[in-house]
């Protein structure tokens, strides 16, 4: 066998996954813990308790938190986990991974040496984007399995197929924060640029959705909220919304493509 034949496939992606598997497992554990904390509360909250809680909350807050569907199992799972803590935590992982992929690597001075080897800048962006996708997909599988496992005991009454579709759509939503962070790093060359871009997309999307929920004159904001595209259609109950799915997928691809262009056209390492 020639040495060239032994060259590993996607070495940068493999390296990125290998470098983060421990932290990925920790995040999986955190996400499962959050599920285990929230979902089993549903039976005790459904019914009169929930009515009382909702009655006590101001109308605006209920809309901002997407609690209007919370009385059903699917609505509860979406409002408490996918719409709030699950979204927050998954976005933190995605943004952190995306910002590390180019910006942090360049900050640390490591990108220079990587690019001096037999790789292209396009390859660096694409392989690390793929690593980001796989890392998030793994966490989504964990979430899917976790919710399914708690579905019976927590009396949520979720449909496994719909849940799968919802998780797929949710993956594209949190991934968007990650690809935005990767793009920020590829453009600016620093981790902070990536984190800022990712946070803008994730938090901005959330805010636009919360404001858009407040009334018909603010509803136009929904159109600019990836968060609303992904979760506005109650995917845990209704499954995938194909226009939202392809919109999110397309935007992810655009962000990665822009990152390729940005990195190919600038100097590495600042100065």
């Amino acid at each position, binding site marked *: 066998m020639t040495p060239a034949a032994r060259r590993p496939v996607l070495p940068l992606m493999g*390296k990125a996954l290998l470098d983060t598997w421990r932290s990925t497992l920790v995040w999986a554990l955190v996400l499962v813990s959050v599920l285990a904390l929230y979902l089993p509360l549903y039976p005790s909250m459904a019914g009169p308790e929930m009515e009382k809680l909702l009655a006590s909350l101001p109308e605006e807050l209920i809309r901002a938190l997407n609690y209007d569907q919370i009385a059903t199992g699917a609505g509860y799972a979406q409002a408490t986990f996918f719409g709030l803590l699950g979204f927050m935590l998954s976005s933190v992982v995605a943004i952190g991974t995306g910002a590390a992929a180019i910006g942090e690597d360049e900050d640390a*001075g490591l990108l220079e*040496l990587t690019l001096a080897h*037999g790789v292209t800048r396009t*390859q660096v962006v694409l392989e690390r984007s793929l690593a980001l996708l796989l890392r998030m997909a793994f966490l989504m599988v964990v979430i899917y399995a976790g919710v399914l496992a708690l579905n019976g005991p927590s009396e949520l009454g979720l449909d496994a197929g719909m849940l799968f579709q919802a998780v797929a759509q949710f993956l594209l939503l949190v991934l968007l924060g990650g690809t935005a962070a990767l793009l920020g790093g590829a453009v600016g060359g620093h981790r902070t640029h990536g984190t800022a871009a990712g946070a803008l997309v994730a938090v901005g999307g959330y805010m636009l959705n919360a404001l858009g929920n407040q009334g018909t004159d603010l509803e136009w904001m929904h159109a600019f909220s990836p968060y609303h595209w992904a979760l506005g259609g109650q995917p845990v109950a209704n499954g995938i919304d194909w226009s939202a799915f392809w919109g999110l997928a397309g935007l992810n691809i655009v962000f990665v493509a822009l990152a390729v262009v940005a990195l190919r056209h600038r100097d*590495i390492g600042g100065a």
Partner: protein
Amino acid sequence: MKRGGAPRLALRKGNGMENVIEVQGMAKRFAHREALRGIDFEIPRGSVFGVIGPNGAGKTTAMRCLLDIIRPTAGQVRVLGTDPRRAGPEIRRRIGYLPGELALERRITGRRMMAHFAAISGPVASGRIEELAARLGLDLDRQSRKLSKGNKQKLGLVQAFMHDPELLILDEPTSGLDPLMQREFLGMVEDARGRGQTLFLSSHMIGEIEQAADRVAILRDGLIVRTATVEELRAGARRRLRVLAATEPETLAAALEPLPGLQLLDTERLGERLGALEARFSGEVGALLHALAGVEVLDLVLEEPDLEEAVLELYGSLPGNGRHRAGEPRP
């Protein structure tokens, strides 16, 4: 931008000399400063070329341009026959690079780090990494963050040398190495030259590379102020001269002062018909001996030329001129 439309530089293949690197008028302007102001040089295959310059002279910038880590704002560059900007990964597999500000991952052993670089680099012969590590006295099983600066530098050297690339671009390779390891490094350079590899080294001290380099370019403020062999530099360098003679110091001084390249520093009367003289001398030794022929010399010390001082002088006094060709005498 002159790319594309500019005439291509042809590799010189006449008299068996092929240039691995050809640079013409390379300039690099950053937002607030001009790091390179148009430099020319060529590095023939199989030779060792050194670039010397003070910090900020543009050494690192020049090397980064050759690897397409940054892009020159003007000029033409050919590395291994191609423009680095257009070169694919295949070209970089044939290059070994040690960055000047070497940054390495922290939570990884040297062995795993080298395995990763081997995966994205040219093919590495089995056992080569261990062989280089043993030569440098480097423990590959320690985590990178626990290594001293010198040992990190050794990791950088191993990843640059391990695939026996045609071209090695090493930015301050001896930085952080102790004198013993500096000598080992010079041995590695010799071996690489013996295998026909081409080396491009930088340093801010000529002493660190004078034994290794065939030719040296002296870079100052983004311009090459001189390109010469080490011998040429040495020949032009000033040496300290001390003469003790059985004569009056005035006679001694009168005999030597007309010599070209002699700068009188001190004379001293040590006794009856016993004089000493100290001077700096950068002329020809034959002329010196000739001038001393009529004097009864008791002792003569002509020190090794101080290359470091010669280079420092070039840093300071000469006006920059990057437009002359490597190897040609300056006008």
